[in-house]
């Protein structure tokens, strides 16, 4: 891994340059008391003061609503128009935190589990992730409890760590390297700093080892019911999560033509598992809450060898009734 230095001014100039070259740039933009990723046209819009954006960056590769194909019927003939990969622009996501960058790995695991998913993979291929290490955290952050860290390089193409007046740039992947090499004049030599000194101190809240040992064998545990009592069954946690990938397939039909759509769904919804017969295998909110945690901490590690949680804490921040996931996991680990 190559290490370089880039000053704040050069970074902004570099991003401007990338934008001018036709890359679509997403970066955190603050409005009111919330910050979220936005397609920016000027680096002036970027805000770096936030602890966490409200939503994750997963929509870059897994949009809320996506047209998979369209069709037209004419005189009994059906013409299909497949997903057009050529319309996907080259994209740079700037300013995501390491927990968000790490989230693309579980997503990729899900979308390549059986049949490789064309739209997801094509979008990922055209996306470069420039992450920024965290220098601050809040009580909802728990990346260090799930093997992450505020300076974790996993998943990022380039990781910038704010140091005095500028950034330490760690160039992690080939994709990142080519973006840097194209504009090498913006970068300077390795500043030779101890990165750890600049990172936020995220306390470890629970023992992952203990959690892993327990969670796979507690399908029948009464803890699910007790934890989920106040859960309202909305999908806020799933929709802000960087690794949740549940989707629904919908038909946008207009007479003889239409679109097949993929849109976000959530396992917390009671209708998610509802059968046509009326039978619902996950009838109670406690069963759905169990599914959410077991999927992330048991099924995914077992089947695709990657945990479905990066410790970003978004679900806890978004929850209207304070279903604090770290608190619940701590409770499970201590059982």
């Amino acid at each position: 891994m190559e290490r370089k230095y880039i000053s704040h001014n050069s970074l902004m100039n570099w991003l401007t340059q990338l934008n001018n070259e036709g890359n679509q740039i997403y970066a955190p933009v603050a409005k009111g008391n919330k910050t979220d990723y936005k397609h920016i046209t000027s680096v002036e819009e970027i805000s770096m003061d936030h602890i966490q954006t409200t939503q994750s960056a997963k929509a870059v590769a897994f949009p809320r609503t996506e047209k998979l194909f369209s069709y037209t019927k004419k005189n009994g003939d059906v013409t299909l128009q497949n997903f057009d990969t050529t319309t996907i622009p080259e994209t740079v996501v700037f300013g995501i935190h390491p927990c968000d960058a790490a989230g693309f790995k579980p997503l990729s695991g899900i979308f390549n589990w059986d049949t490789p998913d064309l739209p997801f993979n094509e979008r990922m291929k055209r996306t470069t992730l420039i992450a920024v290490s965290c220098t601050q955290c809040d009580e909802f952050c728990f990346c260090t409890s799930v093997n992450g860290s505020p300076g974790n390089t996993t998943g990022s193409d380039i990781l910038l760590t704010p140091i005095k007046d500028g950034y330490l740039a760690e160039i992690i992947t080939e994709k990142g390297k080519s973006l840097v090499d194209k504009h090498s004049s913006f970068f300077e030599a390795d500043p030779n700093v101890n990165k750890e000194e600049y990172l936020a101190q995220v306390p470890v809240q629970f023992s992952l080892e203990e959690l892993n040992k327990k969670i796979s064998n507690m399908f029948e545990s009464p803890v699910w019911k007790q934890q989920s009592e106040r859960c309202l069954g909305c999908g806020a946690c799933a929709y802000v999560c960087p690794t949740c990938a549940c989707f629904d397939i919908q038909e946008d039909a207009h007479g003889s033509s239409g679109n097949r759509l993929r849109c976000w769904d959530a396992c917390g919804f009671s209708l998610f598992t509802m059968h046509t017969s009326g039978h619902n295998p996950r009838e109670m909110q406690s069963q759905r809450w169990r599914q959410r945690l077991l999927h992330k901490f048991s099924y995914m590690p077992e089947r695709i060898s990657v945990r479905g949680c990066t410790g970003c804490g978004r679900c806890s921040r978004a929850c209207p009734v304070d279903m604090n996931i770290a608190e619940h996991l701590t409770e499970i680990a201590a059982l």
Partner: protein
Amino acid sequence: MNNEFEPKILAFVCNWCTYAGADLTGTSRIKYASNVKIVRFPCTGRIDFMLLLKAFANGSDGVIVSGCHPNDCHYTSGNFHARRRWMLFRSLLDFMGIDIRRIQFSWVSAAEGAKWADIVNETVASIRELGPYTEYRKAADFLADNEAELAKEMEVNNG
């Protein structure tokens, strides 16, 4: 003013008064604008507010909603219920910036063939003045321009 523009108007009317009234307009040989398509309902009480929104989303530039005069409802009170619903619906749409000048509510009885012709003619004239209702349709055409819309969709900043 674009003289080429022909407004598309959808009329939701009740079976017992306005539909019969529109029939009378025809049998009385009164000429009126042909821009209107009439959809017949059992009662104004049956006209769900969503139908008006669906009309706009699917290409209407204006909507007429019409039924029996108060106290004349075939089902006694359907139009009274409808009136309350419209009062609230109309102010909600206005608060959300949906153009309520494009919705004309009226009472037209089975004997008011001439009034129906006037209502349609006036509505067509005022919608012609307002032009096509593209704003609402644009929101409906979310998927027409997939990538550009997806880019916009990421703009989830707020305050």
